[in-house]
């Protein structure tokens, strides 16, 4: 996403934003990003990748070292956080411990000079919507983690903010509750049509919830696109290995023509692939292939690549099976096959042939 053609419907624009705390280590490097109204955008990346810094600058808890952040075309760089009118949900919920949950939700309304009676009424209604009406007189410490998170979401939405920022809001919840809350937040987004910027390091959460995902690493956006494109068509090795699971094979490009290339692996095997991140013959490359794209014992001519392999380990998972196989020198090659009678007969130590289509095998930058 470059800021070459300004989009009129963009709600937020990051323009060449750079951030450094100490003048040496650069946390965000020349970030350009546009966020449209009504969008659910997730900033995804490992810790230290710059995603949280990016969110905090948008919230106003940090200023860009250079560059600018625009809201509706106007710079908000010098507007303090309390004048930005953004709702924010924090990882640890950040509910005020000395107030009841009703007072917590009424707080932003009182700050906007609403009368106490009206604010308390509206807070009650909004807690009604998240099924917490029977707890409104309780203090946050008397609620479970999931209930506290719902209060935090209600508090961030009650004043109809222009933008809602969520900083790893589900990080402290257990897996099952996290999945329930993911759906709840997604439905809130769909029903209210609000703009949400969501930060997480959990790639499955990002894929489940978002319209678009920006994958951060080393202070830059590696790729930004919708979940399907990110998963099916990663543009570099970082994205390929960060989103979902991938098998890697190192080799050198020996033929390159249009949308096809041939790569010679370290053990001498030749593989057909599509060139993504390679420029010329002789380039070192890492091939990337998803475990579920690998076929077992393909018919001759069914796919471009067919390679001999040996089963090292079988993992039974009910609806599907996973096999760790040796392919060339790679002993960590994983394949994923649906459970059926033929698959059930495979044993550890069996010699097999695996194959895949050239278009599922992407020649990326060398790891």
């Amino acid at each position, binding site marked *: 996403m470059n800021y070459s053609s300004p989009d009129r419907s963009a709600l937020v624009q990051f323009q060449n934003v750079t951030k450094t705390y100490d003048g040496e280590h650069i946390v965000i490097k020349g970030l350009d990003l546009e966020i449209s109204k009504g969008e659910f955008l997730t900033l995804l990346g490992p810790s230290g990748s710059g995603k949280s810094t990016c969110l905090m600058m948008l919230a106003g808890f940090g200023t860009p070292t250079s560059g600018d952040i625009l809201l509706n075309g106007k710079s908000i760089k010098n507007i303090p956080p309390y004048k930005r009118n953004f709702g924010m949900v924090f990882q640890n919920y950040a509910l*005020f*411990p000395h107030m009841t949950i009703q007072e917590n939700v009424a707080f932003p309304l009182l700050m906007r000079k609403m009368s106490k009676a009206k604010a308390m009424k509206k807070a009650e209604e909004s807690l009604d919507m998240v099924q917490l009406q029977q707890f409104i007189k309780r203090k946050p410490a008397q609620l479970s983690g999931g209930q506290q998170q719902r209060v935090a979401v209600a508090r961030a939405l009650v004043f109809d903010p222009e933008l809602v*920022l969520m900083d790893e809001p589900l990080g402290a919840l257990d897996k099952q509750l996290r999945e329930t809350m993911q759906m709840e937040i997604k439905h809130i987004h769909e029903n209210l049509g609000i703009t949400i910027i969501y930060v997480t390091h959990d790639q499955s959460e990002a894929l489940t919830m978002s319209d678009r995902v920006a994958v951060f690493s080393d202070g830059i956006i590696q790729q930004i696109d919708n979940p399907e494109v990110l998963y099916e068509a990663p543009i570099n090795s970082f994205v390929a290995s960060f989103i979902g699971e991938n098998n890697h094979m190192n080799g050198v490009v020996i033929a390159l023509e249009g949308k096809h290339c041939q790569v010679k692996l370290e053990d001498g095997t030749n593989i057909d692939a599509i060139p993504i991140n390679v420029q010329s013959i002789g380039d070192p490359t890492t091939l990337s292939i998803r475990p579920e794209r690998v076929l077992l014992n393909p018919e001759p001519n069914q796919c471009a690549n067919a390679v001999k392999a040996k089963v090292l380990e079988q993992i039974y998972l009910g609806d599907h099976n996973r096999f760790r196989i040796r392919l060339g020198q790679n002993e960590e090659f994983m394949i994923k096959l649906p459970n059926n009678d033929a698959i059930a007969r495979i044993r550890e130590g069996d010699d097999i042939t695996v194959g895949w289509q050239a278009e599922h095998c992407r020649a990326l930058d060398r790891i």
Partner: protein
Amino acid sequence: MNFIWRWFFRLFCLAVFIYLIFPILVIIPMSFSSASFLTFPPPGYSLRWYEQFLNDQDWLDAAKNSISIAVVTTILATTLGVLASMGLVRGNFRGKAILTAFIVSPMVAPLIIAAAGMYFIYSKLSMVETFMGMVLAHTVLATPFVVVTISATLQSFDRSLENAAASLGANPVTTFFKVTLPIITPGIVSGALFAFVTSFDEVVIALFISGIEYRTLPVKMFEGIRFEINPTITVVATFLIVLSTGFLALMEYLRRRGEAMRGVKS
């Protein structure tokens, strides 16, 4: 073997209790004595020394002095302590460690030296035997206790609550009064109680600076013990014991309430 150790342990605890607590508790029955001199156990019980205390203008003046000096000291030390703690915990500047050590140094400096130094300086400034002199001297002693107590509270304070308040539209001043202050109040109150007790119980500096007019209860007691062994002292001592115990209980209550508020199980 285990059995012996257990009994040894109990005996040891009992010895500690007798040596530390008993000498203090012994004062209480003595204050209800009917005898006209200090004796234990009392030959009989009466309220005559309480009556004596309440009818002696000297004692009442001393009590009034002690209370008013302690109250003003508490207000000053708590205000200074809150501001200093905010700066020391939140601030990020060079020489922070040295400044912290400087502020808490009255806690470790030998009192008699501080007292002599203050007497010397205050007499140059004509502040000896003045109310303000007493208050300022006690504030110097009490502030470190406030700083230590409130710093501990601030360190465990979750700053994301302030960010949350800001994101919800509260400016920094509103955030301080609506969010930060209510949450650190238990810490401030225990700091204030420490400051009050520090001033109320202080005798060394008071001996130097208070003079006749601003003589405090501990000074009067000290003189009483030296010049006239009078059971009225045990009455005052009983009041002080009850007061200190009450304050300690209040601090413990506030600590538990603070924890309950943060959802910590005690």
